[in-house]
C-alpha cells in the first residue's frame, strides 16, 4: 500500500464519528487491499464491524438503527416527491377562491392516505414475495390499490366539477361544503381580503360576487 493511501486511512481513523456510509465503505476497501487475501462474506462482515467500532467507538447495533431510520426517511421523502410530481401543475382548481382553497387543503390532507396505501402495496409485495402469507398479501395489495384508485378518481371528479362550475349546486355538495366550513372554522380564509366563493364558470357568473359584498 502506498504512502498516500496509508495517510488517508489514518486520517479516516482519526475523523471518528463524522464518517459517512461511503467513507466507511472506502475504509473497508483499504483494509481488504492491505490484507491482500481472499475474504469470505462472514469475515468481511466481522472486519467491517471491527473497523466500524474502531472508527466510531460505537456499537454496531446503533449504526443499524441509524441506517433503518435513514432509509425510512429517504423512502418517505421519495414517496412524497413521487406524489407531488404526479399532481404537479395538473389541478385546474383556482386557489384564489374560497372553495378552491378548502378543496386543495383537503386534497393535500388526502396525501397522507395515499402514502399509507403506497406503503400497504409495498408491504404486500414484500410479504407475498418473502413469506407464505400469499392470500393476505394479495388481499392487502388489491384492497390498497382499489382505494388508491378511488382516491385519485375522487380528486379528478371533484376537480372536473369545480372547473366546470358544477360543484356545490346540489344538496349533498352544499351540505359537504357547509360541514367543511363548520368543522374547520374560518381559519382557512385570508382575513380582510374580499375573494370569490366559487370558481368562475359560464353557469355561475351570477353568483361569482366577492364574499363580504351583499348582492
Amino acid at each position: 500500500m502506498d504512502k498516500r493511501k496509508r495517510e488517508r486511512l489514518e486520517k479516516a481513523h482519526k475523523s471518528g464519528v463524522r464518517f459517512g456510509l461511503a467513507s466507511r465503505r472506502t475504509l473497508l476497501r483499504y483494509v481488504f487491499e492491505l490484507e491482500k487475501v481472499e475474504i469470505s462474506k462472514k469475515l468481511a462482515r466481522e472486519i467491517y464491524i471491527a473497523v466500524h467500532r474502531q472508527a466510531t467507538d460505537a456499537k454496531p447495533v446503533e449504526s443499524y438503527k441509524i441506517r433503518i431510520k435513514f432509509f425510512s426517511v429517504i423512502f418517505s421523502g421519495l414517496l412524497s416527491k413521487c406524489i407531488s410530481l404526479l399532481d404537479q401543475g395538473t389541478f385546474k382548481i383556482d386557489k384564489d377562491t374560497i372553495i378552491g382553497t378548502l378543496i386543495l387543503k383537503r386534497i393535500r390532507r388526502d396525501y397522507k392516505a395515499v402514502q399509507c396505501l403506497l406503503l400497504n402495496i409495498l408491504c404486500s409485495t414484500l410479504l407475498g414475495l418473502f413469506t407464505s402469507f400469499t392470500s393476505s398479501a394479495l388481499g392487502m395489495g388489491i384492497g390498497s390499490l382499489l382505494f388508491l384508485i378511488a382516491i385519485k378518481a375522487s380528486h379528478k371528479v371533484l376537480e372536473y366539477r369545480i372547473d366546470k362550475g358544477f360543484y356545490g349546486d346540489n344538496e349533498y355538495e352544499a351540505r359537504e361544503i357547509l360541514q367543511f366550513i363548520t368543522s374547520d372554522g374560518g381559519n382557512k380564509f385570508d382575513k380582510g381580503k374580499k375573494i370569490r366563493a366559487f370558481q368562475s364558470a359560464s353557469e355561475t357568473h351570477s353568483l361569482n360576487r366577492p364574499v363580504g359584498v351583499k348582492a
Partner: protein
Amino acid sequence: MDLNTLTKYIKMALDLLFVKDPVATSMGVLFGCILHLLLAIVSLFVSPAAAVTEELSKINIAYLIALGIFILNWKNFLHRPKISYEAEYAIALLKQGQSEGLISKTDARLQYKRIVTDEIDKLVDSMNNAKE
C-alpha cells in the same frame, strides 16, 4: 344523463363507499390486513388455543378489512359536523319548493350555491368583527 348528473353520482358513490375520510379508510384497510396476519401468526405459535385461532385465521380478509374500515370510520359517523340552523331551514324550503314544482331544477342549483355563499359571507363577517 348529462355530465353534471353523472359526475355528481360518481362523486357521491366514491364518497359514500370509499373516501369520505380517506385517512381513516386507508388505515382501516391496513388494520384489517394486520389483524389477518396476526391471527395467522397466533394460530401458528399458540398451541393451547390452536383450534380456535385456526378457525379465526380462516376468516376471509375482506371481512377483516371491512371491520377495520368500520371501526376507524365510526368516530366520524358519530361526530358529524352540524350546519347552521338557517342553512338547514333554507335547504328544507328549497327541497319543498322543488318537490311542489315551484322551483325549477336550474333555479335550485343556483340557490344551493347562494346558500353556501351566504354562509361564507356570514363567517367572513364574523371573522372581521372579531378582528376589530
